[in-house]
């Protein structure tokens, strides 16, 4: 087989291996980066709360969430590779201006809530180091703004990605804490759900933080931006799967460690110091510092991406110039939107006596509420031959898609109903 492909007659096994590796490296990225941003301040908080408040009882939800995450991200990536267009552009072209307008308002609000959560993360993390929010947050806002607008964000991104190795701390901590592994597997194998507002809100929050609405726009844009096409799709899929599983493994260990350390001692998380107790088995008295470092990195990483992704998405939907390569006068809407997101996110957190942990958590619940709407549009687009050509969704993918939408909607409705 190799010979027929190689008219020269010499098997080029080693070279083709390198070539394949180079090809994979060229394609890999969007999925893994998206996943790492996914573990943001809101993410870490929500997982910590899930473990601290509910012990191992909600651990099982990660299994279905992972499957859904992979399926949804796979849809985004496939749509980007096949259509060569961003999700916002597709929604605008297929569903018109009015639908797009209201959807964008919803998305901007959700993303703003998430951005606030990121700055809350900065405040909480710097609080551990004894830096007050009114100093830390404006500094972080300026830093983020400059990193993206004036410096080369692409270079900074690598630093953020390496710093994400911090999550390994949770995994090690998980093993050191010496949980009753039998009990852990039992909790995974026996799903149970309490129909209480607190429990349902937590599940919606878990779903919302893991499968956030902005991710679909961001991932699809990243795939398009990288020039990936249907040909590269097999590798893109692996990128997505590896990224999604990585998110879930980290989430699994955060919940596990918090369950073993915090829940077992009956500690409620109200501050970053308390959340940091989860890292005690690994870091001992340095746990708080380690946790703060990880939270800071996650917050800053997402605080760069979220406003940027929002500005790109909205400009794409309304046909405004959207590029960091343009000057302010050439792309005013883009820069204003981007700057406003950061400004408002930072200002909101500066408000005195703000419950930081609660904000980070509820931003994720909001994600869970907006998500079904976006999935609905994605599913419609994936079935449109004008968009997907001969790569429209198969019946199985559609069935799964609808089940996800209905399940998420019911879950959200139940939460809202029980909360009232």
């Amino acid at each position, binding site marked *: 087989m190799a010979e027929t492909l190689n008219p020269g007659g010499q098997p080029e096994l080693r070279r083709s291996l390198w*070539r394949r590796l*180079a090809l994979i490296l060229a394609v890999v990225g969007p999925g893994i980066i998206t996943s790492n941003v996914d573990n943001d301040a809101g993410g870490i908080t929500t997982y910590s709360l899930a473990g601290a408040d509910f012990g191992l009882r909600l651990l099982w939800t990660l299994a279905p969430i992972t499957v859904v995450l992979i399926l949804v991200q796979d849809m985004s990536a496939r749509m980007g590779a096949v*259509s*060569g*267009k*961003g999700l916002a*552009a597709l929604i*605008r*072209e297929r569903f*018109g*201006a*009015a639908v*797009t*307008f*209201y959807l964008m308002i919803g998305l901007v609000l959700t993303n703003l809530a998430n951005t606030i959560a990121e700055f809350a993360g900065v405040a909480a993390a710097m609080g551990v180091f004894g830096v007050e929010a009114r100093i830390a947050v404006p500094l972080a806002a300026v830093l983020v703004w400059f990193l993206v607008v004036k410096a080369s964000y692409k270079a900074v991104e690598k630093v953020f990605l390496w710093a994400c190795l911090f999550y390994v701390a949770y995994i090690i901590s998980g093993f050191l804490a010496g949980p009753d592994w039998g009990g852990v597997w039992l909790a995974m194998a026996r799903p149970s759900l309490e129909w209480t507002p607190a429990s349902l809100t937590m599940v919606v929050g878990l779903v919302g933080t893991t499968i956030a609405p902005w991710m679909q726009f961001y991932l699809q844009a990243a795939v*398009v931006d990288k*020039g990936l096409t249907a040909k590269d799709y097999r590798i893109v899929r692996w990128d997505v799967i590896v990224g999604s599983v990585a998110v879930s493994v980290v989430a699994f260990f955060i919940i596990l460690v918090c369950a073993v350390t915090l829940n077992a001692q009956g500690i409620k998380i109200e501050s970053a110091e308390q959340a940091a107790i989860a890292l005690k088995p690994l870091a001992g008295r340095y746990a708080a510092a380690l946790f703060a470092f990880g939270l800071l990195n996650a917050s800053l990483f997402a605080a760069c991406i979220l406003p940027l992704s929002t500005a790109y998405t909205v400009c794409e939907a*309304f*046909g405004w*110039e959207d*590029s960091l*390569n343009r000057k302010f006068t050439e792309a005013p809407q883009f820069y204003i939107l981007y700057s406003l997101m950061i400004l408002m996110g930072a200002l909101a957190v500066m408000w005195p006596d703000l419950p930081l942990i609660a904000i980070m958590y509820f931003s994720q619940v909001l994600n869970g509420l907006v998500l079904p709407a976006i999935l609905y549009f994605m599913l419609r687009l994936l079935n449109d031959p004008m968009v997907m050509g001969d790569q429209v969704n198969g019946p199985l993918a559609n069935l799964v898609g609808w089940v996800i939408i209905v399940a998420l909607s019911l879950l959200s409705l139940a939460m809202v109903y029980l909360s009232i």
Partner: protein
Amino acid sequence: MQQAAKATTDATRFLSDLLKRRVVDASQGRILGRLQDLVADARQALPPIIGLVVAGPNRQRRLLPWSQVREIKGKAILVEAAAGSALGPVVVNPGELLLREQLMDKQIVDTAGAKVVRVNDLKLMQRGGQLLLSGVDVGLRGLMRRVGLQGVTEALLRWVFSYDLGENVIKWHRVQTVGSEHILRLKLSQARLASLHPAELADILEDLDPSTRSRVFHALGKEMAADILEETEPKVQVALIKDLSTAEAGDILEQMSPDEAADVLQSLDQRRAEKLLREMEYEQANTVRCLLDHDEETAGGLMTTAFLALPPQETAGRALQILQKKAPELDVFYYIYVEDEAGKLLGVVNLRELLSADPGATLGALMFTRLVAVDLEADPDDVAELFAKYGFRALPVVDQMGRLHGVIRFKALLAAVAPHLGR
């Protein structure tokens, strides 16, 4: 205004305002369906509406010729009594446009402003019995009209900022559609894009989504494509080349200046680059290959080999003739370099001196011998300093033996040392 719908003066209508209206039989008041789309004849300078796509009960789409329309009145479109039998299948011929399906919410190129924008609404003009497509609304007002909040937005802006929301409509003859393939083949539309500078076109291509981008790029022809490719950023270059067949890409690379072609090939993966080089004409491929041997971060990586070098015994008259003949393929024509048989750079004659010199004078006598040249391995920043100090348009590149290898143009240098300004 409504009564005069099919008569007298020009009245303005927006597509968004017409869509979803009931199409009603004027004599019996029977509802045929709702207006779903309009068909316009895009071959005309001001495309007239030639048909209505009517969605009947059970969502069936049928086409009604414009001639059946009597007037647009209130919330309805009144049609002739016999219109029911004039309904036919929806057929769109080449050169015709479905306004809603193919234009609304899609990207278009505003050739006056040289940028890509999204269509918020379409402006129609009633003249005589005709409805003509006159412009494309790309403004906030159009967007808010679609959302149904035009009044609210206008009132709010006036109240808060004392700002009157103006209309932002691009005249139809300034619009280039990029949506579907059959439109692009029209000579007329192509001419609109062709009126733009390659650098503007490059910017526009960068703004389009990848699938549209490659379609437009394809339609522009090889020479234009080569000019555009020289102006785009590397990432977009790779994407554009990736979509072309090897033969097409090879042809386009041949049209480019060797240093630019080398830059493009450098950003492609090796196997693809090799294939393209084999596709190119032997001599040109060789030139590019030589350039590829140099590190991008050195003077050798910046230089072009499309310059003119002549022996010192050549006369000014002959040199001018040669220059005239070779000009189309030269990147550098302001300087003529003088070299000996071994290729050693002896001097340089600029175009002004050459034009004013006695045709019989030899280059050896005319040439300027106090040379400023850079080494093949020189750093781009050092090269930039020389450019700044002497104000040259181009600098020769030599090896350690003083042999001439190429010439760096100011443009290539600018792209290397200040990438945010170039491209």
